[in-house]
């Protein structure tokens, strides 16, 4: 069991590293948010599930699984709130982007202040 746990933890740590490289390399806030949220969420969940495999079903493992479920629920929500907030505060997309339907609809009046 503990070998499976170690493998999962290693993969999770490597995904965390990829997410942070994306945070540094990608050009604008939305792309950084994508890369960082996806990679770090799955990476940390894999670390936690690996911890659960490593120790087996005892107090540590069960709490790790609860923590993983909590992160899976909340992390995308935080990313969504942040993307919406930064779009509404006027942060532009990267200049190489291919269209922004959300801003068009906001200027056209289809999207109102919260519905």
């Amino acid at each position, binding site marked *: 069991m503990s070998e499976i746990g170690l493998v999962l933890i290693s993969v999770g*740590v490597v995904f965390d590293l990829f997410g942070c*490289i994306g*945070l540094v390399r990608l050009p604008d806030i939305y792309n950084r948010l994508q890369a960082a949220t996806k990679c770090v969420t799955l990476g940390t969940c894999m670390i936690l599930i690996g911890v659960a495999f490593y120790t087996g079903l005892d107090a540590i493992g069960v709490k790790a699984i609860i923590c993983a479920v909590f992160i899976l629920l909340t992390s995308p929500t935080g990313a969504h709130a942040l993307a919406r907030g930064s779009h509404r505060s006027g942060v532009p997309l990267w200049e190489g982007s291919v269209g922004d339907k959300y801003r068009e609809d906001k200027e056209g009046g289809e999207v109102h202040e919260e519905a």
Partner: protein
Amino acid sequence: MIWWMFFSILALSGLMCLYRVGAGPTPPDRTVAIDIFGTLVVGFCALLGIIEGRDFFLNIAIAWALLSFLGTVALAKYLEGRGFDE
């Protein structure tokens, strides 16, 4: 030995987050970096829980995940330009 490798990779990731906190051109960039840093700390606490063999590190991890989520939501609401309760 392998634990030291995990910890150093996580610390490297944390340093990259701190670089983004320092260099980020806009406030949302810094907020993303802080959110990601919080999630990294959760993983860190879980690994510490294995090494020390105590379950209260996982309590810290859950509390940290909660705090990181709330901080992100509150800063996102601030970025939308709205008050605390509206």
